[in-house]
């Protein structure tokens, strides 16, 4: 496929220099009203990175308060608000939009060989809806804040005096942004693939973004309805979830998890896509089990809709429901396991380059494997009775979301940074950051599995003395993790100013985004690229039959 796009002049920018998308137009307005998917992607990236920083600082504050078992510098009420904001901002403003909306927007049309997404104006609209949602959620900070946890469980969220309506409206609005991005991606993938790019020749990143987009479209409306019902109940006093008015508080949990479990896959599937790209490109190997990985993404997307009840084994739902949901949960474990095995098998017989993106991909394999395996404990009914709502769940969740999605996101940032800005980052600093993230992250969260099986409940700001040592190790780990993440920020920012100029294809990758200039021109390609083979057909692969 690389050869082919050369023939069609897709990468040849030397003889007729054309300005990149960054310099084609200038001035603030050229950004604010842009319909260029690359610029929208960067604006998303800046916004999500900002909220990652905010919610991350909140997390460090929480961990520091937990250094001792007693109250240190926050009241209980403040602690509750801080953990709620940490969760709500991380979920709705960072992790859901981070990979699909920020990275996906930039990369998806380029990978498909398209000029832009199918509906560029809708794309810009979805960004501004995101901004309104962000503003609404930030306003809750001003309006007395929020202390319900990011799950807004009833009837607590009905009774608390904090700014629940404002916050749920924020999540409600953010949902529309998510739906619009999803619709845009689905249509783009169906309609705008370059000639010759069959479904079986699509990079796995596209498969992952496609599966994610399907979930976004189908699940997000349910969240919208649920949050809307909550607002109606609070403002009009109609009993839907509040038992005092004849409602059912557990019904809320069913509604909420019907969205939020698939949402977990909105968060992790794009990470899977990134890892498939990083491992192949940096080990110069064709992906192992392309079809299995692609289809398992879709399988996960489908099954994710029917496992929500595993959040509710001890909630008072019927025992039979618990048994059915446990069974289905085990069913979703299989496609996830297939992915991990396939990534490891891809390394076999490769020629591995230890670049920063590859380091992050390997860190991902370690952390995500732990995240996935500990999920098996929680899917097992009787064991979950003991571990539910303890630190075991907190640890499992963070292993998947941070050790999975965030690590993949960081690896993807380093991988595509040269494409986005035309500058190389400093490899030494990048690798040190990966090491710090690895050590800090595991120290922070591996200890929490032990806290969990020892019975330490989540969302406690004070705890029994016997849990103190493990909490202290965890807190120290979180500080190391923070240093690692700040180093990532520093490395990427100084690369913009003083990094070496990046060639069009610094990794000698085959997929289409590398067959145009770094940074790309405004319309991505000079001529429509034609695809004739797999995106993982690297020149190093030995086809002589000797292997």
């Amino acid at each position, binding site marked *: 496929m690389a050869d082919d796009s050369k023939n069609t002049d897709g990468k040849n920018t030397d003889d007729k220099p054309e300005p990149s998308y960054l310099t084609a137009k200038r001035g603030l307005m050229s950004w604010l009203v842009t319909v260029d998917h690359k610029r929208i992607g960067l604006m998303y990236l800046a916004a999500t990175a900002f909220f990652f920083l905010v919610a991350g600082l909140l997390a460090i504050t929480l961990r520091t308060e937990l250094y001792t078992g*007693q109250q240190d510098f926050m009241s*209980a009420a403040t602690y509750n608000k801080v953990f709620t904001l940490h969760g709500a901002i991380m979920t709705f403003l960072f992790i859901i939009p981070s990979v699909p909306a920020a990275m996906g927007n930039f990369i998806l049309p380029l990978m498909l060989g398209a000029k832009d997404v199918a509906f560029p104006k809708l794309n810009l609209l979805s960004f501004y809806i995101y901004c309104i949602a962000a503003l609404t959620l930030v306003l809750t900070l001003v309006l007395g804040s929020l202390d319900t946890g990011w799950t807004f469980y009833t*009837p*607590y969220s009905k009774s608390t005096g904090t700014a629940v309506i404002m916050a749920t409206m924020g999540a409600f609005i953010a949902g529309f942004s998510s739906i619009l991005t999803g619709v845009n991606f689905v249509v783009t993938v169906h309609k705008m693939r370059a000639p010759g790019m069959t479904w079986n020749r699509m990079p796995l990143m596209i498969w992952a973004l496609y599966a994610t987009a399907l979930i976004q479209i189908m699940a997000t409306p349910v969240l919208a309805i649920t949050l809307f019902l909550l607002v109606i109940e609070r403002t009009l006093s109609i009993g839907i979830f509040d*038992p*005092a008015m004849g409602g059912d*508080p*557990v019904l809320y949990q069913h509604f909420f998890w019907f969205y939020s479990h698939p949402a977990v896959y909105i968060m992790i599937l794009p990470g899977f896509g990134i890892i498939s790209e990083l491992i192949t490109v940096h080990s*110069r*190997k064709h*992906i*192992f*089990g*392309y*079809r*299995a990985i692609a289809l398992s993404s879709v399988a996960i997307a489908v099954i994710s809709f029917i496992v929500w009840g595993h959040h509710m084994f001890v*909630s*008072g739902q019927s*025992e039979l429901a618990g048994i059915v949901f*446990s069974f289905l949960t*085990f069913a979703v*474990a*299989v496609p996830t*396991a297939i992915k*991990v*095995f396939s990534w*490891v*098998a891809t*390394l*076999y*017989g490769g*020629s*591995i380059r230890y670049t920063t993106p590859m380091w992050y991909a390997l860190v991902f394999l370690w952390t995500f494997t732990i995240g996935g395996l500990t999920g*098996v*404990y929680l*899917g*097992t*009914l*009787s*064991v979950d*009775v*003991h571990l539910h*709502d303890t630190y075991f769940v907190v640890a499992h969740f963070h292993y998947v979301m941070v050790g999975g999605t965030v690590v993949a996101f960081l690896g993807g940032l380093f991988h595509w940074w040269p494409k986005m800005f035309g500058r190389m980052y400093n490899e030494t600093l990048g690798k040190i950051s990966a090491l710090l993230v690895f050590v800090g992250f595991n120290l922070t969260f591996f200890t929490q599995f*032990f806290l969990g*099986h*020892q*019975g330490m409940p*989540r*969302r406690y*700001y*004070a*705890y*029994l003395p016997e849990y103190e*040592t493990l909490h202290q190790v965890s807190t120290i780990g979180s500080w190391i993790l923070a240093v690692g993440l700040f180093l990532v920020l520093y490395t990427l920012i100084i690369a913009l100013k003083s990094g070496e100029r990046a060639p069009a294809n610094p990794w000698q990758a085959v997929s289409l985004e590398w067959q145009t200039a770094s940074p790309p021109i405004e319309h991505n390609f000079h001529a429509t690229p034609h695809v004739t083979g797999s995106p993982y057909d*690297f020149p*190093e*692969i*030995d*086809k002589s039959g000797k*292997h």
Partner: protein
Amino acid sequence: MIAAYIPPEKLGTPPMSESPWELLPTASNHAASLDWLYVFLTAVTGISFVLVIGAMFYFMWKYKKRSDNDKTSPLTHNGRLEFAWSAIPAVFLMAFFIKGEVDFVRLSAPPADAIDIRVTGQKWYWTIEYPGRPVAATVEVEDGEIAPLLIVPKGQPVRLLMTSKDVIHSFYIPAFRVKKDVIPGRYSSVWFEAIEEGTFPVFCTEYCGDEHSSMLAVVKVVPPEDYEQAVLEATTLEQGEGETLEQFGEKVYKSFACNSCHNLDSSVKVGPGFGGVYGKTESLTDGSSLTVDENYIRESIYQPNAKVVAGFTPQMPSFAGQINEDQMNAIIAYIKSLK
């Protein structure tokens, strides 16, 4: 309506285990079977992790880039291998599911002869009531704090019938490996048979607001022959020998969780502070005013919303039928002593 909320470090239950590597005490009939599954899961997932990550490290070392002329394997898939690594995990997953399901079903079906104990959750304390006893059970823990007390006889099945007065709570006894959400407007239950004597902590594990982490209780497993006596003692609130009326009043104040709304100085919490309240002239919500005397205090406990002081809302529950004459005298004496 008994028991106060207490800072966790004052719960005073002995540490459940010596080191984080250890499992918790297996203090109920459910614990050993669950621990077996937990250890089995840890063994299987541990071996899987070592295999997967071991292969990763081996490949990382073996297939490190040697030169620019490296050739890589053209391998793209292997049907047999892929089938094997789908089928083998599936078999183990089914085993986990079945064992977990069997134990879960047992956990959900209390035997017919179980002793029923009522548990009521409310922000932020548990009320534990025994059949035929007028007062809920409490125990004094460190620094004179009072915690709700669940007394259970060793070797006899107990069912807790639970409900909540406000938001969702969750009743969790780690040493017994049981947990169940406690929901307003309906009953939920857990059952267990304690098999080890001792004192163990109880946590609330569903987030319920400000003092969620202080919503603790103590479970005490006693020999069956001591059970009735222990319940009797824990559910009796009488003036002890050599105890002044004011000291007894303080006990009543804590036992009925007055401190969750009323401070001992004059500062406002949910309701007015008790410090210096006696003899004070207060204006009421209806515009009239009165001087706080014994009769007003008594009325405010039995019919709290009859005369509400201006600036407060009528939300205190009545304690009529719960606080008896002796306890009333004591608490009035105690309030009078607070300056």
